[in-house]
């Protein structure tokens, strides 16, 4: 898919609306959009590793949380906001390179459990360090945070970069390599794909964007404890969003992130426990009935229509 005329005629108005939105919608809508954008970036970057290679990761919260903690440490020290975003992404990426070298040798359910455990481990370590330094769990308060519009625009820019990166990867040699790993890792090796490096690069790129997002969200939330920064819910939600939308290209995760954030906004605050049940049931239903996600199901219908259309039409 090359950036053709039809795509541009859809993209330009969308971008124009998104970039001028704070001028004519309420503050509430903007804060809602910030949450949607946050999950959109997480879900698209999750897709770069897990969607393409099939290595399902529950480590999202770890990469996100490291970004959060870069801001927690850097903001009181007077680091400028844009620099914190860059540092948050880089710290997360370096962490991904270090742990990826070990984790990515393990496949299937073991990889899922390992990434989940890893997130919990990072959370506990940071908790312990905080208690040691401050003498107790007092949390971190960030004062003098930028405006909601600033968060909106920074996340919008990060989201666009993430989507463009995803699009470039999907249509490149790199993307073919990642897909072949999902298809059959041994056959991929036999065909000359350096699977170890490919997986590691995919993980690093996805961690980079998650780290950027974490660094921004720390200032959006202003009160940070490890349980918020490294919340396993972030990992689960991201995964469910990407799978719900369909992890073929960036459109699936974007769709999933939007739908689930809106549902969570409608139910999550009033009925937090019911929402958790809903999330679990959603995951089961998708895996059972829509393994390719919403967009995958639509594509399936379209192909079926093309093949059998002549039989069905009168």
């Amino acid at each position: 898919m090359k950036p053709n005329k039809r795509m541009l005629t859809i993209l330009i108005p969308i971008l124009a609306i998104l970039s001028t939105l704070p001028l004519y919608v309420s503050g509430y809508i903007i804060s809602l959009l910030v949450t949607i954008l946050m999950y959109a970036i997480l879900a698209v970057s999750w897709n770069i590793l897990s969607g393409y290679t099939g290595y399902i990761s529950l480590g999202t919260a770890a990469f996100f949380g490291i970004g959060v903690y870069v801001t927690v440490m850097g903001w009181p020290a007077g680091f400028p906001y844009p620099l914190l975003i860059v540092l948050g992404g880089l710290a997360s990426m370096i962490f991904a390179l270090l742990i990826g070298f070990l984790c990515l040798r393990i496949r299937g359910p073991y990889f899922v459990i390992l990434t989940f455990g890893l997130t919990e481990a990072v959370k506990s370590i940071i908790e312990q360090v905080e208690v040691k330094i401050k003498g107790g769990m007092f949390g971190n308060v960030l004062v003098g945070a930028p405006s909601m519009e600033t968060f909106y625009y920074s996340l919008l820019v990060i989201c666009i970069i993430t989507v463009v990166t995803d699009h470039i990867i999907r249509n490149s040699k790199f993307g073919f390599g990642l897909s072949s790993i999902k298809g059959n890792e041994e056959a991929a090796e036999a065909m000359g794909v350096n699977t170890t490096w490919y997986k590691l690069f995919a993980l690093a790129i996805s961690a980079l964007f998650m780290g950027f997002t974490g660094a921004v969200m720390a200032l959006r939330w202003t009160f940070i404890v490890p349980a918020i920064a490294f919340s396993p819910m972030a990992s689960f939600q991201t995964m469910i969003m990407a799978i719900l939308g369909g992890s073929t290209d960036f459109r699936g995760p974007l769709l999933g992130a939007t739908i689930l954030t809106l549902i969570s906004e409608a139910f999550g605050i009033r009925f937090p426990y019911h929402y958790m049940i809903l999330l679990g049931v959603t995951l089961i239903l998708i895996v059972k009935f829509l393994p390719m996600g919403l967009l995958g199901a639509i594509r399936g219908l379209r192909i079926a229509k093309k093949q059998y259309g002549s039989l069905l039409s009168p």
Partner: protein
Amino acid sequence: MRLLDGQNVSKHFGGIAALSNVSFHVDEGEIVGLIGPNGAGKTTLFNVICCFYPLDGGTIKFKGSKITGLKPHQVCRRGIARTFQITRSFANMTVRENIMVGSLFGKSRGSVKIAREEAIQLMEFTGLTGKADILAVSLISADARRLELARALAARPEILLLDEVMAGLNPSEVAEAMKLIQRLRNEMGITIFMVEHIMKSVMGISDRIIVLASGRQIAEGTPKEVSENPVVIEAYLGETRET
């Protein structure tokens, strides 16, 4: 010229010697058949050549330089491609994309655009024309075998290791496959090293045959010599009924 040269190759799995002191060679431009009863170590030999398993003893050289200890993807980039006994296509990708992976990452390492063009030619060559956009997972078994071959060819190998490419094919498809393999050698200059259970076909096209039994090389020679060798006949007793 010796393309592939193995000296005293050994491989154990626990207490079982899958290969013990096997020495073999394949010359440039040859079609060499590798036969032997079930469990003889034929697929294991392919797996150690492709460096899927590390060797426990001996060395394997490709064009005079040692390949033992390399990673599978490095072996492929040097010019050794293989097919799998149980087809391992990339189920999530289309036929065309499967073949493109070979062009992109194998010995030729071309661009996406070149790979796309090469895929079209290879689909034509292997009889997959018109199936470019079908997902590999939904191919029938004969087409899945064609795809394995096309994908391996896309890597532009100098030697092709074929692991029972004819398994599950009907007689007319077997005849077609034999013709195709001869064309690979005669027109494209690719050396062939093939494991095959269908005796008629392997005897029919091989220049030379290597026989393995219980991890040892028990015979080597022209198809005629091998089929008259009493040691080979003995090793196959009880197996010959089905072939």
